[in-house]
C-alpha cells in the first residue's frame, strides 16, 4: 500500500502541471460517456416508434415523424460520443508522452549528477533497465491504461445509472452476475501473477543457462562437451515447459471467460426481457425497445470489467517502475562545496597527506598514504594488483573522498575546491578507453566541444593517430561507437590520449593499459604517452619498464601502503621490494 502511495506521489509530481489537460480529459470523458450510454435509449425509441408505425399502418395511419426524430437524436449522440472520445484520447496522449519524456530526461540528468560510488556499486544492466523496461512500462500504462481506465469507470457508472433509470427490474437482472464476474477476474489475475512469476523464474534460469553455454560455446567445442551441454539443457527446458503451461492458461483465460460470461449474461437479459414484455404490465412495443436497449447495455457493461482487469497488470508493473525510478532519484548527488575555490593553474604541486580510505566502511584499502608530486614532475606508481594504485587515482579527481587525511592542490584540500574547476585542471587517461557514439571529431573534442579543426588535428598528431584518421574514407567525420568502431584496442587508447591532450590539463593522471597490442601500435602508444606527459605534472600508474625508468620519482605500493619511494637508482640501492621485482622480472638478458 505504501508503494502505491509513493507511486501516486511520483506520478502526481510529473503530472501536476497538466491540470488543465486533465480537467479537459475528464470533462470529455464524462460527456462522451453520457452520450454513449444515452444513445441506446434513442435506438430503443426508434425501434419502438417503428413498431408503432407498423402497428399504425394496419390502422391506416402513416406517421414516421417521431421515428425520424429518434433517428436524428441517435445520430447526434453517436457523433458527440466520438468527438468526446477523440478529445480525451488526444489530450491523454500529449500528457503521457510529455510526462514520460520528462521522466526520461530527468533520469538521465540525475545520472550525470550522481556519485561514482553509485556506478561502481550498481551493475550497468540494472541501471540501463530503468531506461528500458521501467520507463517503457510506465509509458505503456500512461498511454494505454490511463485514458481507458477513466473511460471504463465512467462508462460503468453511466450504464448503471441509465439501466436503473430505464427499468429497475431488468437493470437488476443485468448487474446480478457482476459480483461473480469480478470475483472470477480477481482469482484469475492473482493466479496469473503467481504462475507468471514462477514461469519468469524458470525462464530466467533457462535463459541464464543458454546464455552461458552459447557464450562459452568455444570451450564446449574445444573440450567436446556438446553432449553434456544438451544434457544440461533438457531439464531446464522441461521445467519451463511445465511452468509456462499454467502461466499461459491463466493469463490467456481472462478474455474468453469474460467474453463467455458476457454472452451468458446477455442471454439471461434477453430471456428475462422477453418474459417481461409478454407477462409484464407495459406496452409490448415499449418492452420491445427495452429489450434491444438492455442487450446493448449488457454487452457494454461487461466491456469495462474485462478491460479494467486486463489493464490491472499493466498498472502493477508501472508501479514497480515508479518505485525503481524513485529509488534512483533518491540517490545522493556529488557534493560540490559552496563557493569553492577556483583554481588557476598549479604553482607548487599536488600531495596526498596521511590518506586513509576504503570503499566500504569496514574495509580500509589505503592506510596512511602520503606522497607528493612537484609542479612539472612525473611520479610513477608501481605495485602488484590490488595494492591501491587505481584507488589513489580515484581520490585525486574526487571520484571518491578520503576517510581521513587530505588530497591537496597547492596546499588546498580538494574538498574545498569547486568540483568543476578541479576537474578542468585534472586530465585522466583511463586504462580502458571509451568511445562515444558520434564522429571521430566529436570523440577527440569531447572535453572541448568548441575546439577548432587545427587544435583537433594538432592533438591527434601528438597522439599519433592523425595519419590513421586521414586514411579513412570520411576522415574525422567517420561515425564510430563503442561497440562498432574502426579502431583497434590500441587505437582507442590513442584517441583517448588525443582527447586529453586537447583539454591541456594541468595535472595528468595516466593509467597505463596492460592489454596486448601489436608492436607497431605499441610503439605509437609509447610515443603518444611521452608527448602527453612531457612538461606536465603527472601521476602515472605504470606497467612498462620504460615508463618507470623515465619517472622523476617512483612510489612503490603494496597492500595499500607506500613501502618505498625514490628514484630508480635509489630504490635499486635499497635492495627492497622494487629491486627484487626489477631483477626477477627483467626478462631479457
Amino acid at each position: 500500500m505504501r508503494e502505491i502511495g509513493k507511486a501516486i506521489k511520483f506520478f502526481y509530481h510529473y503530472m501536476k502541471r497538466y491540470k488543465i489537460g486533465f480537467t479537459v480529459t475528464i470533462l470529455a470523458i464524462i460527456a462522451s460517456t453520457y452520450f454513449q450510454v444515452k444513445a441506446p435509449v434513442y435506438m430503443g425509441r426508434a425501434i419502438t416508434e417503428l413498431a408503432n408505425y407498423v402497428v399504425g399502418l394496419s390502422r391506416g395511419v402513416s406517421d414516421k415523424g417521431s421515428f425520424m426524430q429518434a433517428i436524428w437524436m441517435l445520430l447526434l449522440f453517436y457523433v458527440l460520443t466520438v468527438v468526446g472520445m477523440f478529445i480525451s484520447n488526444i489530450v491523454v496522449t500529449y500528457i503521457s508522452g510529455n510526462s514520460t519524456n520528462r521522466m526520461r530526461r530527468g533520469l538521465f540528468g540525475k545520472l550525470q549528477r550522481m556519485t561514482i560510488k553509485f556506478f561502481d556499486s550498481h551493475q550497468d544492466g540494472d541501471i540501463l533497465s530503468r531506461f528500458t523496461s521501467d520507463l517503457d512500462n510506465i509509458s505503456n500504462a500512461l498511454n494505454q491504461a490511463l485514458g481507458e481506465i477513466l473511460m471504463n469507470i465512467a462508462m460503468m457508472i453511466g450504464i448503471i445509472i441509465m439501466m436503473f433509470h430505464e427499468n429497475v427490474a431488468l437493470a437488476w437482472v443485468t448487474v446480478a452476475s457482476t459480483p461473480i464476474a469480478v470475483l472470477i477476474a480477481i482469482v484469475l489475475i492473482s493466479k496469473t501473477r503467481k504462475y507468471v512469476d514462477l514461469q519468469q523464474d524458470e525462464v530466467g534460469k533457462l535463459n541464464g543457462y543458454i546464455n552461458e553455454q552459447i557464450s562459452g560455446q568455444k570451450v564446449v567445442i574445444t573440450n567436446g562437451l556438446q553432449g553434456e551441454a544438451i544434457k544440461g539443457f533438457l531439464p531446464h527446458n522441461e521445467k519451463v515447459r511445465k511452468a509456462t503451461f499454467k502461466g499461459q492458461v491463466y493469463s490467456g483465460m481472462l478474455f474468453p471467460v469474460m467474453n463467455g460470461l458476457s454472452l451468458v449474461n446477455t442471454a439471461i437479459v434477453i430471456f428475462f426481457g422477453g418474459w417481461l414484455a409478454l407477462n409484464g404490465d407495459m406496452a409490448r412495443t415499449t418492452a420491445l425497445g427495452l429489450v434491444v436497449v438492455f442487450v446493448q447495455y449488457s454487452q457494454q457493461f461487461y466491456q469495462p470489467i474485462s478491460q479494467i482487469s486486463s489493464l490491472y497488470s499493466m498498472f502493477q508493473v508501472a508501479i514497480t517502475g515508479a518505485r525503481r525510478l524513485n529509488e534512483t532519484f533518491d540517490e545522493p548527488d556529488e557534493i560540490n562545496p559552496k563557493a569553492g575555490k577556483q583554481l588557476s593553474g598549479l604553482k607548487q604541486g599536488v600531495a596526498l597527506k596521511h590518506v586513509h580510505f576504503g570503499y566500504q566502511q569496514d574495509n580500509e584499502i589505503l592506510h596512511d598514504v602520503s606522497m607528493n608530486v612537484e609542479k612539472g614532475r612525473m611520479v610513477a606508481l608501481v605495485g602488484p594488483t590490488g595494492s591501491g594504485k587505481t584507488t589513489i587515482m580515484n581520490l585525486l579527481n574526487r571520484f571518491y573522498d578520503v576517510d581521513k587525511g587530505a588530497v591537496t592542490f597547492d596546499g588546498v584540500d580538494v574538498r574545498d575546491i569547486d568540483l568543476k574547476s578541479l576537474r578542468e585542471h585534472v586530465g585522466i587517461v583511463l586504462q580502458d578507453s571509451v568511445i562515444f557514439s558520434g564522429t571521430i571529431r566529436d570523440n577527440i573534442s569531447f572535453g572541448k566541444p568548441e575546439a577548432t579543426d587545427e587544435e583537433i588535428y594538432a592533438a591527434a598528431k601528438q597522439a599519433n593517430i592523425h595519419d590513421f584518421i586521414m586514411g579513412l574514407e570520411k576522415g574525422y567525420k567517420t561515425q564510430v561507437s563503442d561497440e562498432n568502431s574502426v579502431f583497434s584496442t590500441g587505437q582507442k587508447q590513442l584517441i583517448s590520449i588525443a582527447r586529453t591532450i586537447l583539454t591541456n590539463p594541468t595535472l595528468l593522471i595516466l593509467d597505463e593499459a596492460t592489454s596486448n597490442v601489436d608492436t607497431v601500435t605499441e610503439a605509437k602508444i609509447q610515443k603518444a604517452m611521452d608527448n602527453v606527459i612531457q612538461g606536465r605534472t603527472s601521476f602515472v600508474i605504470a606497467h612498462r619498464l620504460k615508463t618507470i625508468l623515465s619517472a622523476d620519482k617512483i612510489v612503490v605500493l603494496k597492500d595499500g601502503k607506500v613501502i618505498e619511494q625514490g628514484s630508480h637508482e635509489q630504490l635499486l640501492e635499497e635492495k627492497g621490494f622494487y629491486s627484487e621485482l626489477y631483477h626477477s622480472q627483467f626478462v631479457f638478458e
Partner: protein
Amino acid sequence: MKILKEHARKYWLDILLAMVTVVVMAGSTLWQPKLLQNVITAILQNQSHKITTLGIYLIVIAVIGLLAGILNTILSAKVAQSMSADIRETVFRKIETFSFGNIEKFQAGNLVVRLTNDVNQIQNLIMTALQSLLRVPILFVGAFILAINTIHQLWWIILVLVLLVVGISAATFGKMGRHFGLMQGLIDRVNELAKENLVGVRVVKSFNQEKNEEKRFNEVSDQLNEQNIFVGTLFSVLIPAFTLVGNLAVVTAIYFVGDLAKSDPGSVAAIASFVNYLMQVMFAIIIGGMMMTFSARAMVSLQRIREVLDTQPEITYPEVPEQELDGSVSFENVSFSYEGENTPTLKDINFKADAGEMIGIVGATGSGKSTLAQLIPRLFDPQTGVVKVGGVDLKQVNEKSLRKAVAFVLQRAILFSGTIGDNLKQGKKDATEHDMNRASRIAQAAEFIDRLPERYEASVEERSANFSGGQKQRLSITRGVIGQPKILIMDDSTSALDAHSEKLVQEALNHELKGTTTFIIAEKIASVLHADRILVMDDGQLVGEGTHAQLVKSNRIYQEIYATQKGKEAI
C-alpha cells in the same frame, strides 16, 4: 512456416480440438443475435410459449460458448508452450553441432537472442493463432452472411462498412508500422546513449561534460517523444474513427429499415440482430488488421530461427573407430582463408613438431598465429593442404579421439557457473582430486584454490564474477592440462598473469608434461623465450623457425619484434 508444421505434428489432436472449440465459440457468438431476433418476433406476435424454449436455448448456447472458450485456452496454452519448448530444443541441438566458423558467423550473443526472444515470439504467435486466428475469419464471414440473411435488402450497408474499415486500417496500420520502426530506432539510440554514459561515466565527469551529454540525450529523447505522440495521435484518431463508421452504419440501417417496414414488417424485429452482426463484422476486421501488424514481428523471428536450422555445420567428423594419437603435428602446404575474405589468412604453411616439443608462435596481430593454432584441434578446415596429428590426417579422425588428444586453452578464459570442480571436470570427466591437485599446481592455481575453504567445491558465479582475470586464466589452464593431453595449445592464455607466474607455469609444464607437445602463442617474446623452437609468423606466412638465440641473430622480423619489446616489460 515449415518449422511450425514439423513441430505441430506431435500435437495434431490438441490443435484440432483447439480449432473445433474456436469454431464452437464463434458459433455461439453468432447464434445469439439470431435467437434475439426470434425472441423479438415472438414478442411482436405475442407468442409467450416460445419465450421459455428460446430462453433455454439462449442460455445453453452461451454456456457452451463459455466452456468452449475455457477449453480452447487450455489447449492453446498446451500446444503453444509444448511446441515452443520443442523448437527451442531443436535449435539448441542444432547449435551444438556448430563449428567455430558457424558460431563466429552468427555471433554467440545473437544466437542467444534467437533461442530466447525469438522462440518466445513464436510461442505468442502460436497462442494467439490458436485462440483467435480462426475466430476472426469465422466471425467475419459468419456475421457477414448472417447480416445479409437477416435483412437482405441492406447488403450494401455492410459492403460500404467493410470497405471503409478496410480502407482506414490499410491507411493507418501501414503508416503505424513505419513509425514503430522509427520509434524502435530512437529507443535503441536512447539505450546506446545511456549505456555509453554508464561505461564512460568517469570520462564524462573528468571532462566536465555532464551538461553537454544531457543536451545530446535530451535531443534524442525529444525526438522519441515526438514519435510517441505521433503514434498516439494516430491511435487517438483511429479508434473514434472506427466507432464513428460503425455508428453511422447502425443509424443508416435503422433509417432504411424505416422504409422497409411498410412492405416487410418482419424487418423491425431483425434490426437488433442486424446491428449486432454489423458490429461483429467491424471488430473482426479491426482485430484481424491488428493481428497482422503484430504477427509480422513473429514472422521475422520465425525467419531468424529458420536461418539457424538451415545452417550446415562447417565441420563433420567421420565415423571411424577411436584411435590413440601421439603428440606429433605436421602442416603440409596448408593455406586457409576465412569465409568472405579475399586475402588468405594462412599461406602455404609447412612445419613439423615432434611429440614432447615446446613450440612458441610469435608475430604481429593479424599475422595468422591464432588461426594456425586453431587448425590443430580442427576448429576450422584448411582450403588446401593437410594437417596431421600423430601422423593421421585430421579429416580421418573421429571427434572424441581428437578432443582427447588435443587441449586448447583460449585467450579469453571462460568458466561456467557451478563449482571449480565442475569446470575442471570439463577437461576430464572422471578427474579425481589427485588429478585436480596435480593440474592446479601446474597452472599455479593451487595457490588460491588452497586458500578457499571449500577448495574444488567452491562455487563459480555467473560470468565467474568472483574470480579475477588472472585466476580465471589459471583455472582455464588447469582445465586444459588436467586430461594430460598429447597436445596442449595455449592461445595467449597467460596474458593476465604477471611475468613471474607465467614463468612458473611454463616451468611446471616443462617438468610435469614432458611428453606433451605444447604450443604457446604469444604477443610477447618473453613468453616464448624458453621454447624448444619458435615459429615466426608474418602476414600469413611462416617466415622463420628456430630458437630465440638463432632467430635474434638471423631473422629480420623477429629482430624487429624483439627490438620494440626489449626492456619494455616489467611489473
